[in-house]
């Protein structure tokens, strides 16, 4: 069985799963088991194909379907391989998780649409990665969009979900058309829809720039780069948790893939203008900081996580932008560094964001709420979930020895290579984006202290939270896999990097080369004296330090437990705790100019202002992109539609008059 057939097997198995979903709609349990296991198989196939793509030469095939003169071409190269791997890994975990998760969901309603569209969605994503002509690419791309739309609107009774779905599909459609435009430009130059021809096509700079802009806007819209991110925080929470895990973990990465395929591969970096990288870098920086800042003000767990996806996409984009800038100035190795950093973060984010969304799903299932104001103290009710979730939190906060830190470390290294460049504007922009990256990292840490502290620690803020019960084995397994990988990727980057390094080698014929100069212990992306990091040593040292003290203290194990001090109150109650809102208050105050929060305080007292009866504080932070970009567009188009509508409420003379005037105008052309 050749590599390509493995790659093909993945989407086919997914399609089979979808088919099984339709056929077995009568027997729910078999339906669930079969679909999940088929998805698991598809995941395994994707992993296998991914490894094959990374380790061996590109392999292509032509399918007997498609346009008459354009049968579907598929190709498995390093880039496709890497993303297939990412998809496969998380998909496997999610498939296992779903076995448990969906059982509970099935108690409320029929899941048949879910079983139909979830596999289609997966097939779409896998298909995009192996597409080798524009037509196939677009087919799978839009399949991915449409299927995920039906997943977002799965619980369509809620008004919010429908709104989210509409916004999502609308932006997906627009994005798809922009991408199509990009391909059209390449087609015009290359004369064929096959990627091979597009690669070979010689683009004139203006056309290349046009294609690039179309690609950035199109894929950026799917990836959720600010300000094209509006759909993301709406859609991800709306979908069922296992789907949000896939959407946030993989789908937006597929957009990154598309960007790489189109800009780095098809257009080719030899055509880059210096501002291409700068643009991506700027977008990345603003997304990184903007995303986390907005995340900090969210009090719905899944919404918060969704905004963090915006942040992490921003970080990835920073890596890509740096790579493109270096490529423009002909520093292939550094370009490779930027790309590798981005790809590594892609993998990492897929893992920990998948983990976090699955954890959120477990919480939602246990407490029927994602509103942080109603959660708390879950660490005692669901300790395993808490532990796994904590791993996710540490990883996404870019703390050693977990994986998030490694990729941000690499990105910093890339940014610190800036002095190589000439051109002051860039050299001003790059350190700034490095600063933004640092800021984003720190804010993320703050945000996840908030998340873990409010959701899992302290005292339960609602009965549901107080009576929550631990997620079942399947779900724990599903979460455990990415958790373990988070640690491994954090500790053994030296073993992972050579694998990723294949991608830049195939894309820009340059790689990091030996990223482990000082032996397998030492991660040295450029040169040992430049920068080195040995996560394993760090880990061992940490463990030693902790272990030593543990030994000391296991001797004298006895402890006394009393009530915590509560300013002399008789006993502490949950309402005295800091809430999600109050936790983020200082930042809200610091960045008030960015947030422009609208808050109102209602108080009623017994006659005297000090005898407070009731105090009610509300604060709402709106995504400024709405105020300044989306609503104006909406208003304008509404205005236009009103104008046009006027046409259609004329008396019949009016209609005849239209015909008449048209005729006169046409004849007037002849004068």
């Amino acid at each position, binding site marked *: 069985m050749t590599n390509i057939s493995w790659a093909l097997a993945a989407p086919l198995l997914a399609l089979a799963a979808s088919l099984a979903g339709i056929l077995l709609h009568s027997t729910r349990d078999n339906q669930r088991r079969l679909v999940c296991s088929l998805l698991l198989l598809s995941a395994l196939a994707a992993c296998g194909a991914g490894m094959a793509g990374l380790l061996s030469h590109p392999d292509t095939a032509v399918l*007997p*379907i*498609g*346009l*008459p*003169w354009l049968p579907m071409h598929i190709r498995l190269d390093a880039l496709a391989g890497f993303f297939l791997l990412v998809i496969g890994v998380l998909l496997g975990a999610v498939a296992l998780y779903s076995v448990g998760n969906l059982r509970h969901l099935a108690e409320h309603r029929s899941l048949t649409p879910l079983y139909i569209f979830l596999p289609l969605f997966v097939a779409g994503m896998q298909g995009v990665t192996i597409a080798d002509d524009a*037509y196939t690419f*677009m*087919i799978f791309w*839009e*399949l991915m*969009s*449409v299927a995920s739309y039906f997943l977002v*609107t799965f619980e*369509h*009774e809620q*008004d919010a979900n*429908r709104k989210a*779905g*509409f916004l999502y*599909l*609308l932006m997906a*459609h*627009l994005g798809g*058309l*922009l991408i*199509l*435009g990009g391909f*059209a*430009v390449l*087609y*015009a130059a290359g004369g064929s829809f096959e990627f091979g021809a597009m690669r070979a096509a010689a683009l004139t700079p203006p056309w290349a720039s046009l294609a690039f802009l179309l690609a950035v806007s199109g894929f950026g819209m799917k990836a959720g780069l600010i300000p094209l991110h509006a759909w993301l925080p709406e859609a991800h929470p709306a979908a069922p948790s296992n789907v949000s895990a896939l959407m946030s973990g993989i789908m937006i990465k597929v957009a990154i893939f598309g960007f790489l395929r189109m800009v780095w591969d098809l257009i080719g970096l030899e055509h880059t203008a210096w501002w291409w990288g700068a643009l991506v870098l700027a977008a990345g920086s603003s997304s990184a900081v903007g995303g986390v800042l907005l995340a900090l003000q969210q009090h719905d767990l899944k919404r918060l996580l969704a905004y963090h996806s915006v942040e992490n996409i921003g970080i990835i984009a920073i890596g890509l932008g740096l790579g493109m800038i270096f490529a423009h100035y002909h520093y292939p190795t550094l370009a490779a560094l930027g790309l590798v950093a981005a790809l590594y973060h892609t993998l990492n984010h897929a893992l920990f964001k998948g983990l976090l969304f699955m954890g959120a799903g477990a919480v939602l299932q246990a407490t029927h709420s994602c509103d942080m104001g109603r959660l708390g103290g879950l660490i005692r009710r669901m300790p395993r979930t808490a532990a796994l979730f904590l791993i996710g939190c540490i990883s996404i906060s870019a703390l050693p020895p977990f994986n998030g830190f490694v990729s941000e470390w690499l990105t910093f290294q890339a940014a610190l290579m800036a002095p190589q460049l000439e051109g002051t504007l860039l050299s001003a922009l790059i350190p700034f984006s490095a600063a933004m990256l640092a800021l984003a990292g720190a804010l993320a840490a703050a945000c996840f202290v908030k998340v873990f502290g409010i959701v899992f620690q302290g005292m339960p803020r609602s009965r549901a939270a107080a009576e929550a019960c631990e997620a079942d084995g399947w779900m724990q397994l599903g979460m455990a896999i990415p958790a373990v990988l988070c640690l491994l990727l954090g500790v053994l980057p030296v073993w992972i990097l050579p694998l990723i390094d294949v991608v830049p080698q195939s894309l820009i014929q340059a790689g990091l080369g030996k990223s482990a100069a000082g032996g397998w212990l030492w991660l040295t992306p450029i040169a040992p004296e430049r920068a080195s990091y040995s996560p394993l040593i760090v880990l061992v040292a940490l463990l030693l330090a902790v272990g030593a003290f543990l030994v000391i203290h296991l001797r004298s194990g006895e402890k006394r437990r009393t009530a915590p001090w509560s300013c002399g109150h008789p006993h502490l109650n949950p309402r005295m705790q800091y809430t999600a809102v109050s936790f983020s208050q200082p930042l809200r105050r610091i960045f008030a100019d960015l947030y422009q929060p609208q808050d109102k305080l209602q108080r009623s007292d017994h006659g005297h202002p000090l005898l407070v009866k009731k105090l009610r504080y509300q604060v709402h932070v709106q995504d400024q992109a709405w105020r300044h970009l989306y609503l104006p567009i909406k208003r304008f*188009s*509404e205005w*236009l*539609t*009103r*104008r*046009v*509508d006027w*046409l*259609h409420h*004329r008396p*019949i003379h*009016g*209609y*005849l008059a*239209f*015909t008449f*005037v*048209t*005729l006169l105008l*046409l*004849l007037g*052309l*002849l004068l």
Partner: protein
Amino acid sequence: MNLFDVLLLTPLIVGAIMTFMGHGRIAAALNIAASAVTLAVALGLAYQVLEHGAFTAHGQAFFLDAYNVFLVSLTAFVATTTAVFSAPYMLHEQAIGRVTAKRLRLYHAMYQLFVFGMYLGLTTNNLGVLWIALELATLATVLLVSLYRTPAAIAAAWKYFIVCGVGIALALFGTILIFSTSSEVLGHGNAALTWTLLYEQAGQLAPGVMTIAFMFLMVGYGTKVGLVPMHTWLPDAHGEGPTPISAVLSGLLLNVALYALVRCKALVDGATQGGLAGELMMGFGLLSLLVAALALHRQRDIKRLFSFSSIEHMGLMTLAFGIGTPLANFAGLLHMTVHSLVKSGIFFTVGHAAQAMGTQQMINIRGLVRHHPGIGWGLLIGTVAIAGFPPFGVFTSEFLLFTAALHTHPWTVVLLLLGLVLAFAGLFRHVQPMAFGTPPEQVNAVRVNMLPVYLHFGLALWLGLAIPGFLADWYQTAATLLQGAGR
């Protein structure tokens, strides 16, 4: 008496029969049977053309080439499925007393007459007869639109009648002008209006006259195609008539009108070696696309909504034929096919939805997927398909149109993109709440026959995934045929 005569005579005879006993179950069955027969015949003819190339019948009176035989078979197919759909639909209408037996007779008779008109128009070789056929189809549909005799229906039919009447009259003037110059070349008599001959002699026709003629033909046939700003009759006509008629109007009659327009364009291009005709068509196409896209947002009636979507798509086709390169023509033909399939399919579901809810006001149609999953999902899938999402064929054709446009007129791509997005938004903002959400209390159960719908969508899906070779060659030949008039 060859195959060809069967094609024309069947609907005529059956129509005549229907005028007397066109009510009750047999009528519906007969209706289906007749359409099925014509479908078989059409396929037979298609086979002939594919095997032995274009041919003419009854001297020069009729002719069949790749272009129109393909439209004939498409028409026959949709007409058949529509007949299948209309059987239970009209029964329900009769049951709730919207139509009497007398009206049902009229309905069936006119249905066949209308189909006859389209076959005549498609197969005739004579521009004059083409015009007559279109007028005939128009008159037949006028009676169909006013079938319910409600004030709104009357108003709509009247509007349809007057606006289209005037339009068609202008088209006749254009035809006369063509004749006035062609008669100099080909002498008086039928020869001077025979398309095939004109197509050969196009070079010698007086450019000045031909240009003026095309202006009139553009406005005239454009009115029937439903091009902005002569489209005003279309939404009402679709909205007030019985749903099967809306389906065939959208799916077929507009195609035939566009067919006529394209035939004339081929001649004018031949006469005036310039691209004026093409540019005019592109202009009208884009205008229709944009205006319809914007108008979609403001609709309240579900059938009006989808009729505006039809205007949008006719705009796309007109644009494609206006660009006129083989690729663009290919895209246009493909789009014609898939649009007919999908749009008529949508109208079937819409009809059932309206019956289920007892209203066409979208505000009152909610939560279809809950109480009528078949209808609800059908509507959703259909909308997704018509909005140009793969793997449905509409995407394929729009994809090709996109590239074709970028090749010749890059600037149109921007408007095209804008229009498509606006149209999608306008369509979907209305469809989603109808399909999703919680349904109202009272919903009347309807016997739905989703077979035609699935058939149509299935074909559209097939065309999206893989265009069969013979169809491709077919489009190819037609596309080149349309492009190369006198060039």
